[in-house]
């Protein structure tokens, strides 16, 4: 006897992983075909094809968002150097560390997060304002939405990266009797470890992280351009929270279906 009920896993995949507003009609169509005599294998193939096509279409529709987020996050190491010099100018860091704990840590974290967000917000505005001008859909509320949306994923990804990648490094080198103390000025770690704030949050993390990197470099010798052109794994790890948070914020506000809905509403 032919099965007339669809496999629940395939239906779940279809309804939850297919992007766009067409999910319900598509799911109904596949169910109708299954009940008209199509096989369960056909249903699975169609569901997986629908998800693959939907994802491909979304990526193509957001190609400029992807490209811009990638290019802007490439600038992160250069920005980090600039931000560090700004903080160092006028001994801002020193003044923060002279405040009593826990306010010193809170201020330090706040400063680092603020600097990172300024960089992300600048990128978002540079993309969104011309984009909305071109699509004739300027909407201040959506700009605010993008600016607010980028912060939670940035914090979450930074924290996750720290736990997954840097905590084991820290623990391993802390237990080693041969832990090296590389003669770096801290700028290297500052720019390569989650925006720099983790390095200051945990004692000795700076030095330990430096020691465990296979080929440490003295970034005092690097220009901002050389930092931007650095595409090694550790440099890209630093870029990842910026890339993902920009992608998250821009993806939502620039979606084509949103534009379509707006046109229909208009």
């Amino acid at each position, binding site marked *: 006897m032919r099965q007339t009920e669809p496999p629940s896993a395939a239906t779940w995949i279809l309804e939850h992983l297919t992007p766009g507003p067409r999910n319900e*009609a598509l799911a*109904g169509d596949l*169910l109708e*075909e299954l*009940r008209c005599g199509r096989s369960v294998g056909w249903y699975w193939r*169609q569901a997986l094809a629908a*998800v693959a096509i939907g994802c491909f279409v979304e990526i193509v529709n957001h190609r400029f968002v992807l490209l811009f987020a990638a290019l802007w996050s490439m600038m992160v190491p250069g920005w980090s150097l600039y931000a560090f010099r700004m903080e160092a100018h006028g001994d801002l860091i020193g003044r923060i560390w002279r405040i009593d704990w826990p306010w010193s840590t809170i201020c330090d974290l706040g400063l680092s997060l603020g600097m990172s967000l300024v960089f992300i917000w600048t990128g978002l505005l540079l993309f969104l304002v011309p984009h909305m001008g071109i699509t004739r859909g300027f909407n201040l509320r959506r700009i605010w939405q993008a600016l607010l949306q980028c912060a939670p994923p940035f914090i979450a990804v930074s924290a996750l990266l720290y736990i997954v990648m840097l905590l084991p490094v820290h623990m391993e080198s802390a237990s080693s009797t041969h832990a090296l103390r590389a003669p770096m000025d801290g700028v290297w770690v500052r720019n390569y470890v989650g925006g720099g704030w983790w390095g200051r949050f945990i004692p000795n993390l700076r030095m330990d992280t430096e020691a465990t990197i296979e080929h440490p470099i003295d970034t005092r010798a690097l220009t901002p351009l050389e930092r931007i052109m650095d595409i090694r794994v550790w440099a890209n790890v630093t870029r990842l929270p910026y890339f993902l948070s920009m992608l998250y914020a821009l993806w939502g506000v620039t979606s*084509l279906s949103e534009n*379509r809905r707006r046109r229909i509403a208009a």
Partner: protein
Amino acid sequence: MTERSYLGEFELMILLAVIHLGEEAYGVPISRELEKHRGRDVSVGSVYAALERLENKGLVSSDLGDPTPERGGKAKRYFRVTKAGLGQMQATRRVLNKLWRGLPELKEERT
């Protein structure tokens, strides 16, 4: 604003299928119509992707029908070709006809 662009092969087939089907143009019949004429399986997802692209260009419009029990309570999405869609189809047809007319030898060779 009129954007001058010609339809792709699959888009043109879909628009023709929608016109053929008239009031009954939703995902399943459109896919069946394409399968019947092309002689091979069509992904319903690709049909919806193309229809959505055409809708974004203003060449088709869609409405949701009433949910039915045989579809698990899910509504059908009916499509129809807009005036702009018909214009685009005619323009594509004219170009294709001109191009075909310019290939009499090829036609003879193939028959």
